[in-house]
């Protein structure tokens, strides 16, 4: 059994500021972290490995695409107990949208080989939630998104609960399969000492454009059909009023207001 976890290094949004002139995130001096949803993906992989035990010869590989400094996110993943780490990196990959990113990640996964691929449901900087499912499409394998519980893996089938607005679906899929996970799935563990020591020493495998067999036109900015035209902070809505008085008075005031505006 081989599990690949896709992670992304993102700015710690609890520390992030927005440049009021350009509307863009100020990334200078902001600490980088592993995307919080991906922490749950790592935990899911490690607990599958533990549940299967040593008999299944299960290994967990963590994969990211990013600049050279994304290596620190991979090393952190190793400190939790991940066995291998792969970095897809190169100038050609810069500026990629979800399509170009998924293309590169899926090519890397084809090289690494995987029975289960686990992603966080979305990254907290882009918030698209598209990369996981797109990777599955490129690989032409089934995917289950928003997994909140992994009920079991037996033989070549995974059974999981997919979170929905009004409850959950129970979904079965054949392996190889990709899942994206939500926070409700688990509580990420802390690093271990042996993991931290391994993280210092581990050799991170690096893959570039040539290794993945992707052309320059398919990668990064050039391979991205969506392009960001403008980023801006929406102006705060004004004209808010609070109803006052007892609950009854407040309700009356609101009904009156709605009727005046012909909403009721």
């Amino acid at each position, binding site marked *: 059994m081989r599990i690949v976890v896709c992670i992304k290094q993102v700015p710690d949004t609890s520390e992030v500021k927005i440049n009021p002139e350009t509307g863009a995130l100020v990334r200078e001096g902001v600490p980088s972290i592993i995307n919080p949803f991906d922490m749950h993906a790592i935990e899911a992989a490690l607990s599958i490995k533990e549940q299967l035990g040593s008999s299944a010869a299960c290994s967990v590989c963590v994969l990211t695409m990013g600049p050279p400094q994304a290596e620190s996110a991979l090393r952190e993943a190793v400190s939790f107990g991940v066995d291998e780490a792969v970095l897809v990196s190169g100038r050609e990959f810069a500026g990629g949208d979800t399509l170009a990113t998924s293309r590169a990640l899926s090519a890397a996964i084809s090289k690494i080989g995987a029975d289960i691929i686990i992603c966080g449901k979305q990254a907290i900087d882009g918030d698209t939630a598209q990369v996981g499912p797109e990777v599955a499409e490129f690989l032409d394998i089934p995917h289950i998104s928003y997994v909140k519980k992994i009920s079991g893996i037996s033989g070549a089938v995974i059974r999981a609960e997919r979170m929905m607005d009004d409850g959950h679906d129970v979904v079965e899929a054949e392996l190889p399969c990709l899942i994206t996970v939500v926070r409700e799935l688990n509580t990420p563990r802390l690093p271990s*000492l042996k993991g931290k020591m391994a993280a210092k020493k581990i050799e991170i495998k690096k893959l570039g454009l040539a290794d993945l067999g992707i052309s320059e036109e398919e990668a990064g900015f050039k391979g991205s059909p969506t392009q960001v035209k403008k980023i801006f902070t929406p102006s705060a809505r004004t004209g808010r009023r609070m109803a006052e008085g007892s609950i009854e008075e407040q309700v009356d005031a609101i009904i009156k207001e709605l009727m005046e505006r012909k909403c009721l």
Partner: protein
Amino acid sequence: MDYFLSEEQLMIKDLARQIAVEKVVPVREELDEKEEFPWEIMKALAQSDLFGLFIPEQYGGLGKGAFELALAVEELSKACVGVATTYAANALGTYPLLLFGTDEQKKKYLPDIAAGKKLVAFGLTEANAGSDAGGIQTTARADGDHYVLNGTKQWITNGGEAEIYTVIAITDKTRGARGASAFVVEKGTPGFSFGKKERKMGIRASATRELVFEDCKIPKANIIAREGMGFIVAMKTLDNSRAGVGAQGVGVAQGAIDEALKFARQRVQFGHPIISFQAIQHMLADMATETEAARALVYAAARYIDSGAKDVTRASAMAKLFATDVAMRVTTNAVQVMGGSGYMKEYPVEKMMRDAKILQIYEGTNQIQRNVIAQALIKESAAASKGK
């Protein structure tokens, strides 16, 4: 102050701090209030490999020593001495096996201890044997392939929660201190049960219980070292563990200073933050200086133990004595700096002050530590004058 820690030592310190901040601080007040054993935190410590710190690599540990253990204990104690006591008492209970166990005993017990799968407790104290360990009344009678234990141990940390117990009992009443022996007893052995759980002033997250032995039969192979070695096992165990109690003192003192400093910078009286007043500044300066001195002494003693020195009794007694007296003074003064707020349960320093008190009492009261240190001085002086 920089103590020139190695990269691995910094890693250990950082990891212990992360567990303290993320897992201990959010629950310490509740654990204290409910007198609840910190199993969740023990699980986190196990998963992080911290139970294996001082256990040799061949038995599944990380092969570090008393110094690394002290670093971890200090960080945990900053957050909660109750949790740190549970962790440190595990090491205390393990030392008899580590120092005197046979290879077979080590193979049997140490891997599970290193993995944090089984907790350990050390059973020495009894109703009539506290500072005077010679008063032990629990007996172990040889009977064929077995020893039969009878008696009651009192105030045993991790009692009831631990799976493995290292216990001192009398095998030969006629030989006094030389008639004691050490044994390992597993939870679940017929005739071994637990008495009442004590309710305490501080370290309330830790479990303190009686161990009751009623015709408890254990295999002969469960003796640690030889018959008659019990006191030596106990004394060498305490020599190794006392630096850890010192580390608890340093940790809780530092935790209290951090709280007092934070508070003093925010609290405004007479139109100024109280930290601008010399009365407060001088208290904080003394607290910080004493704590740093305690830390230096504890680290030096722990490193001395790890150097393989033959006689570490005096060094570890000094570290325990000084650091825990400092802890009591500093936590008391942290409450004083914070005034009424410090006395309230809303802030953690009242708990720190309650917790600190036990450090002057357990693993040998600080009065006993002074006896131990003085005896070492007398011995040394006598030896020197003989040499002249």
